[in-house]
């Protein structure tokens, strides 16, 4: 396999949140990011994210920067920008990414290839969009105005076990827009995250206590099953609750997988003040109460 080696990103270190970089992301340099952007990892084989990776199989991966906002006014400049001797000077919409896939020992695993004309290729493009760093991560080359990057990844041999994809993006703001400071790490935006990938057919080790990790559909099914149970007899309800609780207790989601769960709307009762007002109104107009938190004191007789 022949790929271009590069030193770009973090002074030669692709800070993508991997343990070998002490979990540092691009934000280690691009400080003060407001976190308005998001990040996504996509594959031509959707089952990569469900049933897991297949040994020796090649995957076409795409890293996407979502909700880009910084430097958008410079997109039209494309690569015709950043020349400090140009008059007038044209700033760049300079975004970047880093992706690596690590095994359970936190070492990179599998291998990257370039994407040429939407196909995986061992050839080296004259003007690559993606480069492979010396440390084994896929990172951006200077292709300004870009918010997504494609790379091919060949899975390692069977028996490698669980793999984690670490990825990070920078939404660059074009520096200060001047020849004196054509680029800097200030006022950029950053997003980073990790995606667990199990080895297909090897049995999940992404669990606790020997239980299989439940998928989203299964979890939602648990809740729906509870609702059905609840329409029956009370004992069936309690039995259903116990079964559901036992099943959900088998799941283990790592801290670095909880970016989405940290959203305000993924909490129960995202607006406690509103809940207090609504509950007080509801409980004074219905015969039921309880289960949703406090509605405050007082009569509520109106």
């Amino acid at each position, binding site marked *: 396999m022949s790929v271009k080696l590069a030193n770009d990103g973090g002074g030669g270190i692709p800070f993508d949140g991997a343990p070998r970089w002490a979990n540092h992301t691009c934000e280690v340099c691009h400080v003060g990011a407001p976190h308005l952007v998001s990040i996504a990892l996509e*594959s031509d084989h959707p089952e990569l994210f469900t049933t897991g990776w297949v040994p020796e199989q090649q995957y076409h991966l795409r890293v996407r920067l979502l909700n880009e906002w910084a430097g958008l006014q410079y997109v039209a400049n494309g690569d015709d920008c950043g020349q400090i001797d140009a008059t007038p000077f044209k700033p760049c919409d300079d975004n970047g990414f880093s992706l690596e896939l690590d095994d359970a020992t936190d070492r990179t695993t599998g291998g990257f290839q370039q994407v040429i004309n*939407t196909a995986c290729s061992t050839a080296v493009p004259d003007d690559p969009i993606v480069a492979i760093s010396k440390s084994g991560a896929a990172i951006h080359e200077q292709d300004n105005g870009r918010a997504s990057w494609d790379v091919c990844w060949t899975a390692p041999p069977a028996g490698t076990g669980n793999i984690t994809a670490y990825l990070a993006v920078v939404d660059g703001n074009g520096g200060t827009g001047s020849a004196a400071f054509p680029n800097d790490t200030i006022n950029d935006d950053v997003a980073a995250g990790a995606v667990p990938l199990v080895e297909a057919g090897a049995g999940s080790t992404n669990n606790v206590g020997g239980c299989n990790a439940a998928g989203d559909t299964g979890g939602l099914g648990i809740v729906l099953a509870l609702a059905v149970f609840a329409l029956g007899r009370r004992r069936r309800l309690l039995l259903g609750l116990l079964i559901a609780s036992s099943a959900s207790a088998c799941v283990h989601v790592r*801290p670095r997988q909880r970016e989405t769960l940290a*959203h305000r*709307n993924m909490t129960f009762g995202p607006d406690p003040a509103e809940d207090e*007002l609504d509950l007080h109104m509801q409980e004074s107009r219905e015969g039921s109460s*309880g289960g949703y938190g406090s509605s405050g004191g007082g*009569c*509520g007789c109106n």
Partner: protein
Amino acid sequence: MQLRLALASLAIAHAARGDTSFVSKVQVYADSDHTTVISPLVQGTADVSPDTTVTLGYVADVVSSASVDIVSQASATTIHDTRQQASAAVSHTIGSTKLHGGYSYSHENDYLSNSFNGGIDQELFDKNTTLSLGYSLNLNDVGRADDQNFSRSLDNHGISASWTQIVSPTLVTQLTYELGYASGFQSSPYRFVPVRPTLDAAPEMWVMETDPDTRYRHAIVVGANRALGDDSSIQGDYRYYFDTWGITSHTIGARYFTHLSKSLELRLRERFYTQGSASFYQENYTTVQKYMAFDRELSSLWSETIGAKLSYLFTPHVEGELKVDIFYFSYSEFAPLTSRTGTNTGIGLALTY
């Protein structure tokens, strides 16, 4: 190669939110039963140490009502009342354990309430599981306007336990059980029950409403929050409730959140509620009974609420909101009122650092 896209979900919170905040809201409730309630609320939360957070709050209900509860009595009138409540709460985190407690004082001209609560949240299994236990005590002095001799007490105890479980990077579920026990005067001091041979007949007498002195309440709630892509999520919950007065109810709620832009978020909500009547409730009492109620909240009813809320992030630290809920109540066993419609509108401003 045709790229079939599948998503692995990663998303970063759109606004940093800390524990220091100031929230101000005003909600206006208005229904077709001639009742209007204006509820201003302010609430401030601050970290007093790296592990300790204090919350102070104030809320009021300014009520104006000519509901059938009131006009069906001998002294038909429109009542005006104001409830004011001040509250304080503190939480302290020790490792994976959070202790919290609070107190609130609520006052209106014929009702005084002191409420205490405390609880513990314990994170387990690398924070995948959170178990919570709570206890609340609510002590009430019930009076009657213009009647200095009327004084009753009502004590409410509540014990709750909840289990919050992360199921996947995009799904979290919660199971809650709450047991409530009420002891004391639970009727309305203003409501009198007509005794008459038929619903159409003139009352032979009016008897003061009498509910049982004790009541055990059981509420079981299951809920789930599911992320849908990067900018949307859906929440759903179901509550099964029953008590020793014979009321059984079902509540289904759903909320959908989506970002219309980087700064503008839309929430759509739906809530359906249905209950059976209390065992001692009768639409018409032909003779005097031990327990008698003229309370539509103890009759069979169902309600439906739909609503929308827009939240706009002016800056990463300043958020405004506007909401409108529309509701409909149907009463099948309460002759004076067969249905009620209304709105619950609100505006709010939150500062978060």
